[in-house]
């Protein structure tokens, strides 16, 4: 597969769907999971989050569409700016944020409903009832997610009866159906076989002309294959001299164009991690 064409960030003209993560700290109760994260996610580009397990990739990703609000005790300090507004401002409704910033999860999680109802679920939430309109949305979303040809004769079939890879594409179709501007993907291929993984990767490269995509992955090759930008996170730890208590938190080490980060990493830590010399 061809690496996606790289562009100089300063050459991007309008950036309506860019996301600026500014000085973000995220807490679970009193535990600070990540500290001082600053990332400029570019409009209609694929950004990848990589880093060791527990460094807070999912935490940051889920903060972008306020999914962390669902975790009791989770809280964010700092700002995430989207379309000129702080997503954590008092006037922002998280329900609308999640409609505009969709999410695909690690484990394919179709609803226990038919394929049709899975895709139509989001539009129906928004109050669309007209059958013809729904049919159209379902068809175009499934086509966009490269699933249409496989299921077009079987739309009544349960979404759960599809293969893992098909389920994940169904979840992508379901996300697209509410016309979000950004799609967040948390290790979308980690439960899939190589062929399905390749299909999802191809799909991402197709979708990026219309959507800003952020993907968390443990797969370096995947990050290199699909992403334009890569953020590398790592775990920091301090030991309290007096109590001997060990404190850990995740931090952003480096955010760069993908080819640069992998070929000429600015930090030694990054170089160690991507060459497999981590830990």
């Amino acid at each position, binding site marked *: 597969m061809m690496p996606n064409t790289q562009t100089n960030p300063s050459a991007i003209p309008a950036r309506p769907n860019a996301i600026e993560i500014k000085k973000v700290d995220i807490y679970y109760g009193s535990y600070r999971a990540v500290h001082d994260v600053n990332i400029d996610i570019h409009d209609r580009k694929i950004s990848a989050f990589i880093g060791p397990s527990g460094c807070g990739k999912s935490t940051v990703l889920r903060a972008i569409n306020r*999914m962390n609000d669902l975790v009791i005790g989770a809280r964010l300090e700092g700002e995430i700016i989207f379309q000129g507004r702080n997503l954590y401002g008092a006037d922002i409704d998280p*329900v609308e944020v*999640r409609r505009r910033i*969709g999410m695909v*999860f690690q484990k394919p*999680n179709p*609803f226990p409903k038919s394929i049709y109802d899975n895709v139509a679920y*989001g539009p129906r939430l928004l109050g669309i009832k007209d059958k013809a309109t729904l049919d159209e949305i379902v068809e175009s979303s499934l086509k966009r997610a490269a699933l249409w040809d496989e299921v077009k004769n079987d739309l009544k079939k349960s979404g759960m009866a599809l293969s893992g890879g098909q389920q994940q594409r169904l979840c992508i179709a379901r996300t697209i159906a509410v016309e979000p501007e950004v799609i967040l993907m948390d290790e979308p291929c980690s439960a899939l076989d190589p062929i399905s993984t390749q299909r999802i990767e191809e799909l991402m490269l197709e979708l990026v002309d219309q959507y800003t995509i952020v993907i968390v992955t443990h797969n370096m090759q995947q990050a290199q294959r699909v992403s334009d930008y890569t953020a590398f996170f790592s775990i920091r730890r301090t030991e309290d001299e007096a109590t001997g208590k060990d404190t850990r938190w995740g931090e952003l080490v480096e955010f760069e164009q993908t080819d640069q980060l992998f070929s000429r990493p600015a930090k030694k830590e990054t170089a160690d991690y991507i060459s497999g010399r981590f830990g």
Partner: protein
Amino acid sequence: MSNLVDVGVYRSDVIRRNTRARWMQNIYFSTLIIAIIVLLLLLFSIINQTFGYVAISQEIKAEQLSDRPLAELQPTELATILLEQTPRLLLVMVRDNLSAVPVDQFTSTPLRDGINGTVPDDLADLTPRDLSGDTGPAAYARLLGDNLSSAQLVALIEVNVLKVEIEQSWTLVESLTQREEIEASVAATEDQEDLVFYSWLNNRLLTQRNSQRVEEAGIGPALAGTFYLLIMTVAISLPLGVGAAIYLEEYAQESFLNRLLETNIRNLAGVPSIIYGMLGLTVFVNTLSFITQGRSILSGALTLSLLILPIIITNSREALRAVPSTIREASYGLGATKWQTVSRQILPAALPGVLTGLILGVSRAIGETAPLIVIGATNSISTFPDSPFSRFSVLPFTIYNWSSQPDAAFKNASSAAIIVLLVLLLIINSAAIFFRNRAISKRV
């Protein structure tokens, strides 16, 4: 086997562990067998009491009244028999079977209003008091013939004309194994004239009201009372219980008040039911009597709802909690509000568990007697409940009452009533199971 890895810490004790497993398996199996045997014994004893020979006596034989069997006669012909044989009892029969007004107002109310059914035009304006002369019986016979079914009229004839009395009853086993002895004993006993094989579970039992005489006693109002009571209890407790469960699981924040609420709900499930009766008496019957009209079905249903709410809430909460979080996340991730997620994903997925809770609750409610006696269910109710505010009677109470009657034949009637109660329970639970299975199969 034992020589595979038989050294050191890996010393094989497979044989010992397997023996132990087999022992436990046998113990569990025997408890199951014991439970099944006990259940079968229970069913057997109920059925044994419900069918069997009865020795009856009667003053007049049916053949003396008509050359055809009574069951084949038209209602008007049966009414004529009643008119000829028992003219003086017809007023009471009309009042007991057709009156639409309280007993004390019946004689002074025009028949048009006083009768529950069709009244011929020429009688419509008359009151029973106007009919006290010779014209009365003929008029009442017309009313009976027009408004009662053949079966009801035959029952009236049996009781009032033939004066059928059950003198002695035998169980099914006795009837099958000791036929000769029973026949001999009936022949030898003076007032026992006939021996018939009798089913205590019959049409009369299901439709008639309670009575001091076992030949007349039925469970009609009690069956209707139990049925309406259960329907209303479900209608009240299901939405309340599921609502409370949704609040506690999905909306409630972790707080002292909510934790207190949770603990209390769990403890309430263990409170003896009579306490609920006392509560129902003070709250629903007395304090809220302007709504519930006192000792009404509504009061009973509210009390039973309190009784089964903890069961429904606890089961519904467990069902809600068992809904995978991936479904919640998927729904929220698409921009669903909390209520959309709850109503479109979580509740449908939890429905089977909710219905299981309902089945458990209803099964408990259907057999409850104590709180309802406190509330004021009585056995002497002779009218069918016609509104949520009617006084009422319930089956378990009738069963209890009959089984403690001195007349041994009431024990047979009581067994028949138990069968009716069990069948009712079975029907209601089958309905719930049907909906549960449909909910499960909808989860494609």
